[in-house]
């Protein structure tokens, strides 16, 4: 059973990757842009997955980190003209530092208390942006005139040529998937899963749970911040309404619906949550109603998420006999 599933899986993944790569050649600008949005939210979902999926922390304020990254990019780019892609590390760093500062005092809160505090965090960030904090965020207008990314001198305008942008964001998504896959299957990812499963036992096994929670927050924030760069440079302008509490809710739903703690699940979640409302565009004002119903139905039929994580298996059969000794 298990083996058969494994055998089907690999070609299936290959086919999906192939289809994804060639899709822009066939589907036109609009659906390409939908895929761009799916990819951006997949990145956000994957970054949130580190905190919510592996770490099990109820974090509903991820848009705050996304916003910090996007605004860092926008502010530096419009003020000094630094090319946007160079700003990706800066955006990640800014978001990571922000996460370090704000998550530090709240990391010990449990479940729902953490949930409301992270909601509060994203609201405070949004209000600060609207109120033009430090005089650099442009207030409710936001910031406009952000450059398009350019790769080796080639301008990638995400609005005008979604297909060009598609390959940029896909490249970053691919790198992210690989890195996060390695991270998941490492000492670090394991530690997060332990503390998610039983915090007391994890601490009692010698895992610095507070430290790992904080690290998860920072890594998730760094990635959300870098994704903020991609978003800002795609749209050309940003305003506070793109980073509302609802955006955080969307990311949250992507992770839980797709399968919390599973990379493939999160990717599927992004495709569904971002894709479905577009598929229902023809229904006009009924589309959100149908979307809400679809959410409920999917959750009821797959309470663990559509693709829940499988227990990890270890290559114990590959160990040589002489290695196994005290």
């Amino acid at each position, binding site marked *: 059973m298990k083996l058969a599933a494994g055998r089907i899986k690999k070609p299936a993944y290959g086919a999906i990757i192939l289809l994804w790569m060639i899709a822009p050649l066939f589907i036109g600008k609009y659906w390409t842009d939908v895929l761009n949005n799916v990819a951006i939210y997949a990145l956000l979902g994957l970054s949130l997955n580190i905190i919510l999926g592996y770490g099990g922390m109820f974090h509903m304020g991820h848009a705050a980190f996304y916003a910090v990254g996007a605004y860092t990019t926008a502010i530096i780019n419009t003020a000094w003209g630094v090319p946007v892609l160079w700003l990706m590390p800066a955006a990640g760093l800014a978001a990571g530092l922000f996460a370090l500062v704000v998550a530090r*005092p709240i990391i010990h809160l*449990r479940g*729902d208390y953490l949930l409301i505090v992270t909601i509060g*965090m994203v609201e405070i960030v949004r209000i600060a942006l609207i109120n033009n904090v430090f005089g650099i965020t442009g207030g409710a207008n936001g910031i406009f005139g952000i450059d398009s990314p350019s790769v080796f001198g080639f301008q990638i305008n995400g609005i005008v040529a979604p297909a060009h942008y598609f390959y940029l964001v896909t490249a970053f998504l691919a790198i992210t998937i690989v890195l996060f896959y390695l991270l998941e299957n490492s000492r670090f990812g394991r530690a997060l899963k332990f503390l998610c499963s039983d915090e007391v036992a994890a601490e009692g096994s010698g895992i610095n749970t507070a430290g790992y929670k904080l690290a998860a927050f920072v890594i998730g924030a760094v990635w959300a911040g870098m994704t903020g760069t991609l978003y800002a440079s795609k749209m050309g302008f940003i305003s506070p309404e793109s980073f509302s509490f609802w955006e955080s809710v969307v990311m949250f739903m992507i992770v839980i619906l797709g399968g919390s703690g599973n990379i493939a699940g999160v990717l599927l979640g992004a495709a569904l949550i971002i894709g479905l409302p577009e598929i229902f565009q023809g229904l006009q004002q009924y589309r959100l*109603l149908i979307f809400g119903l679809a959410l409920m139905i999917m959750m009821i039929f797959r309470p663990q998420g559509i693709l829940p994580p499988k227990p990890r298996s270890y290559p114990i059969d590959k160990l040589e006999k002489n290695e196994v000794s005290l």
Partner: protein
Amino acid sequence: MEQFFTQLTNGLAVGGIYALIALGYTMVYGVLKLINFAHGDLFTIGAYLGLTLLTSLALTDHIGGLAGVLLLAVMAMGLVGIIGILLDRAAYKPLRTSPRLSAVVSALGASIVLSNTVMLVYGPSTRVYPQGLLPSQVFYIFGLPVPVMRFVILAASIVLMIGLYVFIQRTKIGTAIRAAAIDQDAARLMGINVDRVIMLVFFIGPALGGAAGVMVGLYYGQITFTMGWTYGLKAFTAAILGGIGNIPGAMVGGLLLGVIEALGATYISMAWKDAIAFFVLILILIVRPTGLLGERVAEKI
């Protein structure tokens, strides 16, 4: 000082409504450990059903203003309570044994469904309650003008809350609810019909939210299909502030949140009002991680 007391009454009036909605969150949470994110939309439905009943039945014409309004509120509460039970059946019951966050997503889906249903049924425009049903006198306390309805709203909220508290603490059914909140399996073994308790909780909580909706409609006069989201978030904040799962906590949290908002807006900044409220919430939770009246459960190791 005059400013302070005026703003205190302003804050308490809003806080009373937050508290009433917060009770719905806290009751459901207490028994099911579930955050009913659709609760704010039940509040909206209460406001809209109140309007429909008011205009279609013309109760206030037949039996007089006050009696009509009271009857109306009771009817709206009943209907919203029933919708609450149906919501539980549709969105939460199938997920009782699932991971907690699955129910959160189902709740968010239900919230989208409910608010968009209201939009489709009643239209997206602002709807307006008929005016002049309630007295519009103004009291003067030490020379400060205080609209009498602010007192009535606050008093009505407090009466409902105290009523609920007495019901939970003093009656047999209330005891069953408390028992189910502590340990569902044990309660079941003691012969309590836990399913019935859950049904009751999903009736009372939404009914109180519906009452708040009618009050908001009657007093402020204007309702929109998106208002549940704003009020819901505030009320959820209030419930957490007081210690979720704790009924007096919801009352304290709601009133306190209203006062924090009013005073923060007055003495610090209006534009930053919500940020100030959340900031205070975060500070309180850092000091008291389970809210003001929440029990500090030291985990047994």
